[in-house]
């Protein structure tokens, strides 16, 4: 994680990088979803950090070692269940991905390329940053605090929640591995809007959100429409 250099700056990646990032995020989501029923939030977080650092680029059979590493006495009895769930989930994910893979297109027009998740995440982060940067220091802090409070209501996994909490509490950028469905992004923006309403009142909240949207829309080369997040 790194601190914001500017409110609207997020790590940029080239098109191949974005594809890799998407694949990584999908895999991470799949693992998080498979492990979630078996682990507490803290343990899940820990497990994902281990996976990200050591096993993200290892073949599937290495998952056995991954599970051995984080399974302590509390979940030892469930080890085979967890492994089974993990294999099943990754297998399904591969099948789904293959089915959804578009047929190769000759002379593919870059402009007409479908919107990518990476583009959505970038705009999502830029919008959050633009909302916060439209406030003075005191209000900024209060909105951040209120947003953290509101995030309790977000239906997202522990990792996403942790990343968002870090964003609002520490000012960290969202990590490159950050993945959230667009629907959940909308819910998150709405929770931030609620935080704005609580701190500033609804009239100013509307203005702040509107100004933030306009700032994003004025940026050149947006690969994703910010209005999709509203």
């Amino acid at each position: 994680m790194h601190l914001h250099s500017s409110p609207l700056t997020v790590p940029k990646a080239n098109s191949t990088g974005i594809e890799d990032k998407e694949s990584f995020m999908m895999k991470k989501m799949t693992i998080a979803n498979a492990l979630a029923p078996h682990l507490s939030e803290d343990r899940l977080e820990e497990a994902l950090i281990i996976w990200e650092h050591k096993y993200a680029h290892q073949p599937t059979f290495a998952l056995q070692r991954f599970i051995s590493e984080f399974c302590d006495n509390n979940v030892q009895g469930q080890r085979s269940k967890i492994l089974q769930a993990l294999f099943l989930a990754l297998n399904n994910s591969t099948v789904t991905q293959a089915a959804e893979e578009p047929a190769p297109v000759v002379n593919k027009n870059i402009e007409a390329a479908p919107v990518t998740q990476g583009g959505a995440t970038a705009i999502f982060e830029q919008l959050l940053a633009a909302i916060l940067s439209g406030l003075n220091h005191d209000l900024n802090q209060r909105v951040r605090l209120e947003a953290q409070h509101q995030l309790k209501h977000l239906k997202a996994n522990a990792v996403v929640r942790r990343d968002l909490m870090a964003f609002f509490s520490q000012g960290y950028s969202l990590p490159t591995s950050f993945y959230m469905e667009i629907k959940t992004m909308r819910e998150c923006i709405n929770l931030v809007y609620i935080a704005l309403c609580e701190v500033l009142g609804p009239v100013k909240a509307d203005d702040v959100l509107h100004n933030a949207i306009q700032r994003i829309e004025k940026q050149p080369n947006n690969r994703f429409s910010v209005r999709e997040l509203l």
Partner: protein
Amino acid sequence: MSIFYFLLRATVLLSPSYAFAEPSIADLATSLNTVWLMTAAALVFLMQAGFALVEGGMARSKNTVNVIMKNYMDCCLGGVIFWVIGFGLMFGANHTGWFGTDLFMLNDGSAWDYSFLLFQMMFAATATTIVSGAMAERARYSGYLIGACIISGLIYPIFGSWAWGAYSSGTGWLKELGFIDFAGSTVVHSLGGWCALAGIMVLGPRLGRFGSDGSSRNIAGHNLSLVALGGFILWFGWFGFNGGSTLVGDASIGKIILNTHLAACAGAAGVAVFSWLLNRPILLTSTVNGSLGGLVAVTAGCASMDVQFALLTGLIAGGVTLVGPALLNKYRLDDVVDAVTVHGFCGAWGTLAAGLFYAGDLFNGQRILVQGIGITVAFVWGFGLSWLMYTAIDKAIGLRASPLHEQRGLDYTEHAEVGYPEFQNNKLFNSDNLAARGEI
């Protein structure tokens, strides 16, 4: 005067009996009464437009269509429900004193029955639509309409049968006690106000309406011109509301309408005076509400008060419209148009004033006691039943719009259209694909 005379002549000339014989005095009286009552009904109907303008203007632009739609449908659904069940419950034969038992779906009545039904139907719509403004900007359309139907068909007519019943035979128990409410300060307005109070308690305030420190935040309406125009239209319609409640076109109408007008003037003046005394700015919204408060208050006693007391009633009502919202804010109750104050509080004050200032018998303790009973019973019945009703609706289908819908505005999320498409510039929602996403 000449138009009225022309209408009367036309009615008489076109009536079948005229072809055979000179109309009797009774025929002429019936014709006159019918023409007057239908004119008054049309004026009361126009009040719906006034409510729509006041409430639409006081809401933010992203919720204008929604609140106007609620007004519109109150009148439509409320009218049908009142014909089906409400009129019978309110004015049917009432031998127990508690509710009417006939005249449901009236279809075989006399000419006068239909006139009376139509006039009363407009009153029912008025009582129902009071709620929409208070609950604006965060109530779901479906839940709200279910509530409106129950108010029109049950809550309003049953209380009405106690105070005004019956039309055919029997008497309501409050009427029997000597309760005075000439045109409905309590029966129509307070009752609507108490229903609104229950509604806003169940709904909760709009997002951010109150700060975490308990401070109250003003959420300005989007168009004060509409509010002022709505105020004028309501005022105009009130001449039919009070004047028509005589049910006959006789000489008493003049004083009733004069009392009505002066109370409205005094209500607005009261706001100016009290604002000045309290060192507050004199707001347009407060001024309009002051005049409406005066109108509501004088409605109970406009036929039984001397002119100076009508004026005093209106003046005090103006003060009430300033104090009421502060009281509600203290308890974190969010009433978008101050309907609880204007209709509930001012209606209660006006009903009491009708007992206090009864012409020729001022400050009669017995009468004041009866008025107090009527006011209290209206509160217990209206508030209690509405609270249960809105709580049940909330549990069953949800009364409160989601925060996401509040962000986007209920115009688009509930009706898929906006009030000002050329100006709103898709402020806080994406109009292109909400429908495709299945989110409206």
